[in-house]
């Protein structure tokens, strides 16, 4: 691919000179029209120049927008293309919209990484990009810079920060930022994992999500599996855009298999004679927000008050849906994977599940 970008300081001079030219031609238009008209001559030349003035004005405006992106690239030190041989060339996508999307996506990923590394101000910066999450170029830049690992770790870090904030007396602003960040992640992930979306990251990204979903991570000494963190993103999704069939088949299905692998022994114990006698429950793998008790500050649509009274065993499962009274497979993100069974959970909160789940 050939180089696309600008050369400094020539580009800056171009912006200044073209902007000045637009103003000068605009002025010429009215003066020339006045002279031709006053002398009783054909005003067509002035009218044609008026159209040129409008065109040059528009060009100058586009140039200034591009210059704004160049300044941001310099300020944030985010390269948007291959490094040029000399420092005076700055690479950027040809399309202005793509350049802006790529810049924002890269900057947002940087804020996300900083947040994951414990920078408390970074979530606020990330929040500023919430409205961009539907732009495909933004999503691609954001997810490719963050990677499946970053996508997995970020919600965990956010949950950890909320836990700390709650212990310190209040979640207030942190909760608003956390919800926005989770919504952004959910939208980006749904788009980036949908093969029919222009933001699709490719099959390898889905495989990476599975790999990190099964990996063990640590947060302030608490060990968790990647899926327990990724599950918070699924829960933050408002279903628009929805997660794709492909995502369900690759990641969703594996999460179910993984939960079974990890918890089968415990579930068997629940069914054996001693377990039953002791009244033990079939405890599903909990997502991290539930484990840390921060769900209400983190997930955009908190469970209804009626559900708060039900035990966490049915609410915080990585596969659980928001309503705790139906089979966990009825959770919207999982619906396409598995036809929901009709088993309902008793309102008393015991966690009897259907055979499949």
């Amino acid at each position, binding site marked *: 691919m*050939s*180089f*696309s*970008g*600008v*050369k400094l300081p*020539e*580009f800056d*001079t*171009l912006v200044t*000179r*073209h902007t000045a*030219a637009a103003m*000068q*031609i605009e002025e*010429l238009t009215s*003066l*020339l029209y006045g*002279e*031709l008209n*006053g*002398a*009783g*001559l*054909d005003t*067509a*030349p*002035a009218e*044609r*120049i008026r159209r*040129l003035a409008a*065109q*040059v004005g528009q*060009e100058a405006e586009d*140039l200034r927008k*591009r210059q704004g992106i160049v300044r941001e690239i310099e300020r944030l030190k985010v390269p948007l293309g291959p490094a040029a041989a000399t420092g005076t060339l700055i690479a950027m996508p*040809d*399309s*202005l919209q793509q350049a802006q999307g790529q810049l924002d996506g890269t900057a947002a990923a940087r804020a996300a990484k900083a947040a994951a590394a414990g920078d408390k101000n970074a979530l606020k910066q990330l929040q500023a990009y919430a409205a961009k999450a539907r732009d495909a170029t933004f999503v691609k830049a954001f997810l490719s810079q963050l990677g499946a690992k970053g996508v997995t770790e970020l919600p965990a870090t956010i949950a950890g920060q909320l836990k700390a904030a709650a212990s310190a007396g209040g979640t207030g602003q942190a909760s608003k930022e956390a919800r926005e960040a989770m919504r952004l992640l959910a939208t980006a992930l749904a788009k980036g994992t949908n093969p029919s979306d222009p933001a699709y990251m490719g099959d390898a990204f889905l495989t990476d999500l599975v790999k990190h979903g099964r990996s063990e991570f640590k947060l302030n000494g608490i060990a968790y599996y990647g899926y327990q963190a990724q599950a918070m993103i699924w829960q933050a999704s408002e279903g628009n855009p929805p997660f794709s069939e492909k995502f369900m088949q690759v990641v969703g299905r594996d999460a179910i298999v993984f939960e079974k692998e990890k918890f089968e022994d415990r579930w068997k114990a629940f069914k054996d004679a001693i377990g039953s006698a002791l009244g033990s429950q079939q405890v599903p793998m909990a997502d991290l927000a539930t484990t840390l008790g921060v769900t209400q500050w983190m997930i955009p649509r908190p469970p209804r008050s009626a559900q708060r009274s039900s035990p966490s065993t049915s609410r915080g499962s990585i596969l659980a849906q928001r309503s705790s009274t139906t089979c966990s497979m009825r959770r919207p993100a999982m619906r396409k994977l598995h036809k929901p069974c009709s088993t309902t959970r008793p309102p008393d909160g015991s966690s009897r599940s259907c055979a499949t789940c």
Partner: protein
Amino acid sequence: MPGLDREAMQAAMSRIQKLSDYNWWVLHASCTLMEAQAWVGPSGTRFSDTVHKSQQELRAMLAKAVSLAQDELARAK
């Protein structure tokens, strides 16, 4: 519409010529900077083509205005 008398037309012609002279080079810097590859890539190339054409057209219109004024001056008595 009746034209200006010769003296007034001479003055008008002179002002139009000045406008033409003053604006003849208005897009020259943009053209030169694009030739110096201030902005490269498909959009940059399109802009470069457009700005060169704009310069040509602007000069053609300035020349046309001057020529209209000169012809009128020649007719004025």
